[in-house]
């Protein structure tokens, strides 16, 4: 489903020279699979998620990324979203003045329109949102507030997954969705994520902890270090990392 070959990317900060962060990432996530990406702070995990979703300020200098065989990198962010690529942000944005439901509805309709599907009727939308909120134990009043404004760290993460349930994407990138969640919330959120697992959908789960992977069982685990994938393996690789830390595993790979 997602194919990355020798992907090189640099950040271009506002004031300063470009800096290469991804130094040749190759990765293949077949349909229906869940892959976990782990790696030390600053190794480029979030950068990878931004490059895949088309954020400004990141230049792809070499390599390719295809989605269902089509080039992903030349598309606008909204076109990638319409194809079904969803990013649960490590640091969700606050958007003053736009209530959650208004926002999600606008996004859903835009995606449907881009794909040539009919609009979702208002009653259907409301029913769906009520169900999703219930599943994630989100207070419906929260959905009337401006997006993420004044929400706690955990509430923001929960709201990312709420949007994911509503938009039902085909490829999900979860960037440290577990950070900031309490133990019960982690379980609730993981159940929400698992509800979307299907043979048609794939996931890239970025995390530092085994805890999340206990709930969302990955098919494969990759270790990203200094912009390169230095080790790949089955779910047991995550367990090893938990025990031995990154240093040992990375050294061995080198």
């Amino acid at each position, binding site marked *: 489903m997602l194919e990355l070959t020798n992907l090189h990317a640099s950040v271009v900060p506002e004031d300063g020279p470009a800096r290469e962060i991804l130094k040749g990432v190759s990765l293949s996530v077949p349909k229906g699979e869940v892959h976990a990406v782990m790696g030390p702070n600053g190794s480029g995990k979030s950068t990878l998620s931004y490059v895949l979703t088309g954020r400004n300020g990141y230049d792809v200098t070499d390599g390719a990324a295809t989605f269902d065989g089509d080039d992903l990198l030349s598309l606008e962010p*909204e076109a990638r*979203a319409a194809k079904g690529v969803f990013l649960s942000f490590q640091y969700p944005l606050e958007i*003053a003045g*736009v209530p959650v439901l208004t*926002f999600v509805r606008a996004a859903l309709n835009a995606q449907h329109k881009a794909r040539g599907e009919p609009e979702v009727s208002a009653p259907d939308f409301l029913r769906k949102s009520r169900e999703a909120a219930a599943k994630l134990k989100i207070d419906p009043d929260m959905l009337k507030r401006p997006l993420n404004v004044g929400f706690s760290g955990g509430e923001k993460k929960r709201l990312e997954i709420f*949007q994911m349930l509503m938009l039902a994407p085909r490829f999900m990138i979860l960037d440290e969705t577990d950070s900031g969640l309490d133990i019960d919330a982690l379980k609730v959120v993981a159940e929400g994520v698992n509800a979307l697992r299907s043979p048609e959908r794939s996931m890239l789960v970025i995390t530092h902890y085994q805890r999340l992977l206990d709930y969302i069982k990955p098919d494969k685990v990759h270790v990203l270090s200094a912009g390169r994938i230095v080790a790949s393996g089955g779910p047991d690789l995550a367990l090893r990392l938990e025990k031995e830390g990154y240093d040992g595993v990375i050294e061995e790979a080198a």
Partner: protein
Amino acid sequence: MASSRASLHPPRSAEEQALIERYAHLPADASRRAAIEAFEKTGLPHRRVEGWRWSDVRAAVRGLECKTVAEPPDPFHSQAEGSLYFYDDGLPSRGRIAAGVKIDELAIGAGSGDVAAMPLAALTAALASGPAVTSLDISSDTVEPIRLHFDSRCDGQFRRVEITLRKGVTARVLESHVAGAGFSSVLVDYRLEADATLHRVVYQAGADTAVQAANARVWLGHGARLVQTALGFGAKLARIETRVTHGAGASEAILNGAYLAGKGRHVDFTSHVGHDMPGCVTRQIVKGAARAGGRGVFQGKFLVARDAQKTDANMEHHALLLEDGAEVNAKPELEIYADDVQCAHGNTAGAIDEDALFYIRQRGVPEREARAMLTESFINEAFGAADPAIADILTAEARQWLLAPQ
């Protein structure tokens, strides 16, 4: 910074001459004469006069084209109850006016007050057509808003209105200033007696062949409250100017507004709040957006007199430049002579937050809509104090502008 002092006796322009001739055809009385004399001293304000550096009226009225353009629609049109329509030169035509509102058409106005600071107010007092002053005396609460509709075609128009809110009365006034062409100027003087509340809404829209001024002076009695919300789309040049005086203490003013300047439009929000007495509160949020070829101006001033202790005043102006070729100028000013005060202002001008834009696009919303969504929510904050029904109308107007093809 201003270059140097504007000379007191500038050579008169053809347009100024025409305005003075227009005065000659009106009934002569001492009030008009004093006003025209005041105007003759300053002439039409221009960019070398502090307070007009970004809004050069003298240049804007030069060679004002007269195309037969209908004025833009008035969004409050459906609210016909309690309306006063100021068309052409005649007496205002009326819809049904609520009981408790007494209307007088005065042939001779009282003095026009301190017009030195407001040169177009002087001009308006001198040239007011129909009655010299239309006076409204509101002595009981009105549920339905009173609607004042001013429009202008090639000949322009000058109108003067006085509105008094008696003690403890709550009233709502909707002012629509729509102009298809010509040079028009309106002066509305509000006087709020103790504990009165005025909800004032100002809507302005004009063609790029019109020059408009909506001048207002609001005097607040003890414990009185002004809640003002304005939306301006500009014209060739439009100035929406409000001068508020906290005249007796413990009063409150909310002075919100939004301007949206499209191609060929200039919109100027100017306000002056005099804290003359202690314990008064002013809150101001002005939001603006400009497209290529559009220019927005915000000038806000709080003047806190020595005796106005415990003043609490906050001014915010934030503008978005939606495209290159847009221009926004701002002068948020504080002049403070009392020490026990809390006064602050914030001003920003720039682009839409790129991170927020990316976030929305990541969810699948196309860039243009994402920008409109962010701009709309940004602008909407200025309508937060208005009645919800009115806020909805203003939001819809703003949205239409945002989504209109460029």
